[in-house]
């Protein structure tokens, strides 16, 4: 396998009894890249992340992360994981949680103290360092969850649905934190079922469903390939007869599809079309998912 890839998965398969969770998943993630794994609940995202972090043994296939097998403790030392479930000790304080997990990664003494201070600042919890986690809001816990994953300065960071159940303010804080990590050159593997997060944070997005990889590319490329045309909808005030062959107007409502909607609308107004309201729906990742699976990502 190539040593220059941060993550390489080849034809991974994993079943739980008769239920296939991952079916032939192959991925390549480059160093410094943020790859988003986008799919609905039950698509196999968490199982994939568990295989990539060495928590689960695949039934078949090969995995290489940070240049080695993730089951190897020396490789796991270079990985950071923020699980979907809040993996914190509620009866310990924020500082105690950071200290405990830091110890597991051989951090000690002044190095540990420095990293705890960094973690508290990263999570925005400097003034809550001595407070027990059980007193924190969901957003504060999520931020601490992320800080712990980054405490030992890993080469590859795995984030499993890091914004589930958080308030908008904390979500923004997490987005900013991840953006900061991206800019530092960290490789991030990010699973989510929120299109907005994938679009905003990821260099490339892999769309998965039923344990299968359906498409993998940058967001614009995915939209261009699978998103289809923009949808135009308008209440028409005036609609010249000569345009009747280019769009259908029923009961005063115009509905049309176009790859270049603004140009299209400009050409209509040039010949006398007038609108009371006008709405353009550009294709997005939802359209991509709909196009690939025949159903909505939110289903």
């Amino acid at each position, binding site marked *: 396998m190539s040593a220059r890839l941060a993550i390489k998965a080849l034809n991974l398969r994993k079943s739980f009894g008769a239920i296939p969770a991952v079916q032939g998943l192959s991925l390549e993630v480059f160093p410094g890249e943020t790859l988003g794994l986008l799919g609905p609940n039950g698509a196999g995202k968490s199982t994939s992340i568990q295989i990539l972090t060495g928590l*689960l043994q695949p039934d078949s296939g090969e995995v290489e992360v940070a240049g080695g097998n993730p089951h190897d403790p020396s490789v796991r030392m270079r990985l950071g994981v923020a699980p*979907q479930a*809040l*993996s914190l*000790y509620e009866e*310990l304080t924020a500082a105690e949680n950071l200290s405990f997990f830091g110890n*597991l990664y051989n951090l000690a003494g002044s190095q540990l103290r420095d990293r705890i201070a960094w973690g508290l600042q990263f999570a925005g919890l400097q003034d809550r360092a001595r407070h027990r986690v059980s007193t924190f809001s969901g957003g504060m816990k999520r931020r601490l969850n992320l800080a712990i994953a980054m405490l030992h300065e890993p080469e590859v960071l795995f984030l499993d649905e890091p914004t589930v159940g958080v308030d908008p303010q904390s979500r923004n804080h997490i987005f900013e934190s991840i953006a900061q990590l991206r800019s530092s050159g960290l490789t991030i593997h990010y699973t989510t079922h929120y299109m907005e997060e994938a679009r905003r944070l990821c260099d490339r997005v892999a769309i998965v469903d039923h344990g299968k990889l359906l498409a993998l590319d940058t967001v614009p490329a995915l939209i261009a390939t699978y998103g289809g045309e923009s949808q135009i909808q308008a209440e028409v005030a005036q609609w010249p007869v000569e345009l009747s062959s280019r769009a259908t107007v029923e009961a005063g409502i115009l509905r049309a599809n176009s790859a270049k909607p603004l140009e299209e609308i400009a050409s209509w107004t040039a010949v006398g079309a007038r609108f009371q309201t006008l709405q353009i729906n550009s294709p997005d990742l939802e359209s991509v998912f709909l196009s690939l699976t025949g159903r909505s990502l939110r289903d």
Partner: protein
Amino acid sequence: MQVIQLALKDLKLLLRDRTAAFFILAFPVLMGLFFGMMMGGTSGSERGKIKLAVVDEDESELSRRFVSALERNENLSVSAAKLDTAREQVRKAESTGMLVIPQGFAQSAGIFWEPQPELQLGVDPARAAEGAMLEGFTMQAMSELIQYRIERPADFLPSLAKAREALANDTQVDLVTRQLGAPLFRAIEQFIAGLPTGENAKAGEAPNNAVAAPSIQLAQIRKIDVTSKAQTLSVGGETFNLRSRWDISFPQAMLWGVLGCAAGFAISIARERGGGTLQRLLASPLSLRQILLGKALACLLASILVIGMLTLLGWLLGMRPESYPKLAMAGVCTAICFSGIMMIVSNLGKSEQSVSGVGWSLNLVMAMLGGCMIPVMFMPAFVQQASVVSPVRWAILAIEGAVWRGFSWGEILPACAVLLGIGALGFAAGTWLLSRASQDGGR
């Protein structure tokens, strides 16, 4: 090093969980004190007495002596009552039993060749074992009347003369027997007439100590002092070197503490699994075995802490372990055993609640069978045999062996070996089960 960090973290969490801390630290102390006080001291004066209602329908000097003999028995609490009242007291469980002394009791009581008066003993059916003891105490009191009679030969002589006369006049008996019987009766009469009387005996003093008359006993009863040394393997050996109530109750309390630790840490593994922290631990450079070792170490340290704390508390109350090194070994082996069991229990449920339910149910069964509630030696024989399957039995045996049974190293080692074996088996099985469960992805 990381294993120690894991253990320290668990101990810190334990101390911050008030419910778990109560069951591990306070509950065993309460159990030890409760059972210790329930068992009473090793001296009879502190033990609960059997309540006996006595109905004296004879109201003679002899019947009063008989009642007095019963009252002197330190195991009995005797009260006088009318027949109906006595019956009510037993029915309402206010008395264990009732004893009716019939009219005419004085005529023949204590004269061993006369038909004995019929005493009526009624016992609460729910306290059959104490009923058997009451029968024994009644016989004991009757034996004192025989001695009382012998001390007063004059009481015997009319009865003897009457018997001699009846024999002489009984034509159904052949002539030779009648002729031989007459001198025999005279010889007995002369022997009794020549005995020293007990007139000078002080009232209330035990007859066998008061006079030099030949003593007659209805049964050979030997009292054993359970607080002194006795031969191992003998009945008395069961209570070898038992010095105080705390010698029995505190080993039991130690086991309650260790059981609390095992249940608490089994629940903590389930909590880690449910809460997601186990996933984070498994994603760290630690192996599953190291993680479980950390848990086992925490359980082990907490168990040893509890045993140490209870040893100290027991010592302050009067428990004096025969051998501290043996107690330390028994304690460590017990802690290892239940740390292993904890590993299995933690896998017997999917949620914290189910592990808690399974853990405490299993604890109760092991505790009941193993002698954590009632000492094994007080159990029926078949239960004693069945109790060998309970690790609690072996743990209590090892700890009691060090505290008051006076076990040698050779005697304590088998129990410790069983405990270590169970611990090793538990650790291996628990690791395998958790490994399998984690590969099921929590399903």
